[in-house]
């Protein structure tokens, strides 16, 4: 029962929001998203008490002639992503407080629909349903970027849309190949698993690369990433947060749920290639981040580096690597949303996010500098922050696969410090510039936003079991199979 409640809550909120005047859209969206957060916490509690509870599964006959059912289920791995989504949504909505939003009704409706689609992607246990939600998620974000984005948005959004759509088409082909190999022509995930395993190496290879292409574009991983920096830079803040905080996890989640267990022979044959690509991603994107002059674009590239490490960790196919990937997905979601909000606050107060035009913000607004500092430390994986746990486990998994890959991927430890510390220094420290001289103190909603982010960063860093325990059993089960 829970899956369908989680799916419908945002939709219902959106409907209520549409019925009410646009002056209170923000608050309604906020209320709805908080309701969703409670729902997911309640679900988490159920999962803890009884992982086999019937309430965690939803199954309804849908297209019986096609062998596709509306089936969703929630296990530990899914739960981490659901939790991330429903924690981030209220924060993303909070980030619009004290900001003028054009056509708020449409904007918040899009966000809520997006949330529903994302939850669907994470919960779907039917190939066709998964594909449909995967594509559904693209529609709201397309409109968010297209109508509320910055300059040149038509061209950039179009490119992003076509690029990711192309990836999903490959995934559809992969799903159809798998479907053709099922004994009873079914899209149920377990049938697809069985079909994948029964296929020849060559067939598995095709499925592998088709899936991988879709996921690699979504994350994105080198060399499929060129849509991402433009899109992140151009989208409105909330769009960027949705894209980087949650949507890219569709790709990494897809790897864990749909790719690894599906075609094991191909996975063991091509892991090496993928890990090399991911490690290249880490170093390449980190280097590029060093020479960025725009802070938003810098974060975009740093995100590619972080995701590269996650992808490599997943393909190490070790419990440590996959657990690390899950923790890091959660951590990255929190940190990157925090960083993009930092960017938003700077942009709003200084009128620019060009690094060299800023400086001395710490002198004018010490509190903001403090929040930014902690989020930065989270982002460069200092111990006792959330992403240290993730990064360490990822490197641990990669190390077990190949020590050299861990050594090269580990360069992010150094390079991450280089680009984050340098940009922090240029923007926050030193003398104030004409842009930063009148930097306003933080609004209550901004302080609330940063407090929540920072608390999560610290709590997950000091006591990571909160996240690790959720998926521990399911990851082990997956590794054993």
């Amino acid at each position, binding site marked *: 029962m829970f899956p369908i409640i989680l799916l419908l809550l945002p939709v219902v909120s959106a409907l209520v929001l549409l019925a009410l005047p646009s002056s209170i859209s923000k608050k309604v969206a906020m209320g709805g998203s908080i309701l969703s957060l409670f729902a997911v916490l309640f679900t988490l509690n159920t999962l803890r008490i009884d992982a086999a509870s019937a309430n965690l599964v939803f199954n309804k006959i849908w297209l019986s002639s096609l062998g596709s059912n509306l089936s969703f289920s929630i296990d530990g791995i899914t739960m981490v992503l659901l939790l991330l989504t429903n924690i981030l949504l209220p924060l993303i909505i909070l980030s619009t407080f004290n900001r003028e939003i054009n056509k708020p009704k449409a904007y918040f409706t899009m966000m809520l629909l997006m949330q529903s689609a994302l939850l669907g992607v994470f919960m779907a246990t039917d190939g066709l349903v998964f594909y449909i939600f995967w594509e559904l998620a693209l529609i709201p974000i397309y409109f968010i970027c297209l109508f509320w984005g910055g300059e040149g948005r038509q061209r950039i959004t179009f490119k992003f849309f076509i690029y990711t759509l192309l990836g999903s088409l490959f995934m559809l082909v992969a799903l159809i190949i798998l479907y053709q190999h099922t004994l009873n022509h079914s899209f149920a995930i377990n049938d697809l698993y069985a079909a994948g395993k029964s296929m020849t190496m060559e067939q598995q290879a095709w499925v592998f690369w088709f899936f991988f292409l879709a996921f690699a574009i979504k994350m994105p991983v080198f060399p499929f990433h060129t849509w991402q920096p433009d899109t992140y830079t151009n989208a409105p803040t909330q769009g960027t947060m949705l894209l980087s905080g949650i949507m890219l996890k569709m790709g990494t989640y897809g790897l864990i749920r749909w790719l690894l267990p599906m075609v094991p022979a191909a996975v063991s044959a091509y892991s090496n290639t993928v890990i090399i690509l991911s490690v290249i991603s880490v170093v390449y994107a980190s280097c590029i981040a060093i020479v960025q002059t725009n802070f938003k674009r810098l974060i975009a590239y740093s995100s590619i580096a972080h995701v590269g490490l996650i992808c490599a960790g997943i393909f190490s196919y*070790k419990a440590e690597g996959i657990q690390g990937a899950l923790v890091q997905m959660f951590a990255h979601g929190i940190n990157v949303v925090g960083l993009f909000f930092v960017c938003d606050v700077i942009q709003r107060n200084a009128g620019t996010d060009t690094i060299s035009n800023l400086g001395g913000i710490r002198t004018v607004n010490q509190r903001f500098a403090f929040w930014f500092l902690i989020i930065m430390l989270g982002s460069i994986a200092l111990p006792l922050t959330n992403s240290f746990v993730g990064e360490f486990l990822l490197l641990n998994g990669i190390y077990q696969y190949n020590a050299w890959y861990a050594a090269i991927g580990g360069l992010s430890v*150094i390079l991450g410090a280089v680009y984050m510390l340098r940009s922090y220094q240029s923007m926050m420290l030193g003398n104030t510039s004409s842009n930063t001289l009148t930097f306003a103190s933080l609004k209550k909603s901004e302080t609330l936003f940063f407090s929540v982010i920072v608390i999560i960063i610290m709590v997950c860093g000091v006591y990571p079991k909160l996240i690790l325990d959720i998926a521990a059993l399911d990851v082990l089960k997956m590794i054993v199979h």
Partner: protein
Amino acid sequence: MEQYIPLIPLLPLIGFVVLGLAGNSISKTLAAIIGCASIGISFVLSLLVFNAQLHTEDAVTISLFNWIEAGSFKVELAFLVDHLTSAFLLVITGVGFLIHLYSVGYMHADEAHNRFFTYLNLFIFFMLLLVMGNNYLVMFIGWEGVGLCSYLLIGFWHKVNEYNKAANKAFIMNRIGDLGLLLGILMLFSQFGTLNFVEIKANLTGIETNNYTIVVATLLLFVGAMGKSAQIPLHTWLPDAMAGPTPVSALIHAATMVTAGIYMVVRSNFLYSLAPITLEFIAVVGLVTALVAATIAMFQNDIKKVLAYSTLSQLGYMFLAIGVGAYSTGVFHVITHAFFKALLFLCAGSVIHAMSGEQNLLKMGGLRKKIPLTFITFLIGVLAISGFPFTSGFFSKDEILVNVYAHNKLYFYLASAGAVITAFYMLRLLMLTFFGTFRGTKEQEHHLHESPSSMTIPLVILAVLSVAGGLIQVPHIYGGKPYFAEFLNSVAPAVESAEFSLATLEWILLGATSVILFAVYFLTKKFYAENKFEGIYTGIKNILAHNYYFDEIYNTLITKPLNAISTIFYKVFDKMLLDGTVNGVGKVVNWSGGKLRYLQTGYTGFYMFAMVLSLVVFLIIGLYNLI
């Protein structure tokens, strides 16, 4: 006793949280009281713990909770207190407390006074965590945590970009070392399936000497130590780190944090003893650092820079001692160095305070009459570091030399030469600062004053310790006992039996040290005490004065190429090749779509024709397949 152990790091943490939350809403006095009291109580508890450890060889383990658990990986947040840890606890909280006390006076006028104590308390917390962790990962928390505090405190005056750059440099260079440490930790985990010190030690049976994994792992761990303890080639951040307030230089960049590398190696002595290759490497790195840094220190004109290079050099000696297998000697020097180097830095702070912020030696001179207490304590520090007979530095340095002699004669001669250079640059520093006549401005002269008692009391205490601190380890020939070596023996037994019958050598060292010190005294007095010194260097001296141009070399070989490669990645690969290809594909699709559009003519006749044509083609293909 055990139940108090978690309080030792917890109190500074509480101090940090309270001070951090209160910020400037509480008075400076209250902030200072909170900051000092939290460390002071920790010190008392450390004394109790130390006392308990004196009477037992059993280590105490206290587990708080499982920190990270995934797959087969499991790490506890747990403390291990044994003889080694309890010794470090005393140094950290003891010297830490004195420096906190000193800071009350030193930072009194600074508007960010409260923030300073916040950071200092956080530093002590992480430093305690570093030496108390019962496994490599908890140690790593402290390791990176002290790095963070170092970063924050070097860039404490954040409006000056030069300081900020120094802070960045320190953090990034440390991170280079940290990657090595991290990989070493991963290697140990994959080898032993645990990161717990005690468990790893217990799993070593049957592993032969110079086992490949152990050698590589110990080397990787040592890379971390090279970063944190500023050994060549990862040393260039430490001189720049002097940008921080002087108490920070004393506490973090002399007495405690930079010795973390020594702690880590001694803590891992069971691994290092199995890897003589690594130990030899450590000895060489230590020796080279000791000599190179000492030669640089001879030509520095900034009071804190001299002390910074001196610290590098002394850390080199500590690694040299460890490299020849004399672990307890290395730690002994850590302790005596903590006393006399903290003293020297705090005295330098008192001088800078008196000089209204001036650090240039060329502007000083003749201060011994103006600030006599600072002068006397500084003199004691100089004597101790130069190895004046029966001061703490004498005992620890001679013990290093004796151990090195037993290991390798060449190392011994080089290390002894380094000791002479040490005496030279320290006495030069003393002469330039306190002797001769005042060379500063009239205004500076007018403001000259002795520091307040909160600053001078720590100086006096540290001076006493600098003299008497060596008594914990006195060679037999002077009728003493190596108490400290015996104390540490349960944790870090020496590789080669340290029972030297080298009494003759010790007598020679005593005689030589005395003679050389007097010679150097007159030499430096002649050159530096009479205002003839101009501080301008040419030729090879200039190269030394510029730190052998390490910074410039790194800039050319690493920083600039990294930026260039990154720019090429960005502009050529990313923008032109990759994105160009993507956009190119888009354009081709657009273009061909534009052409293909003409097929959609809208004429039924054309469609019929196309249909028939296709049918014919398919038929032919079908027939072909049939045949």
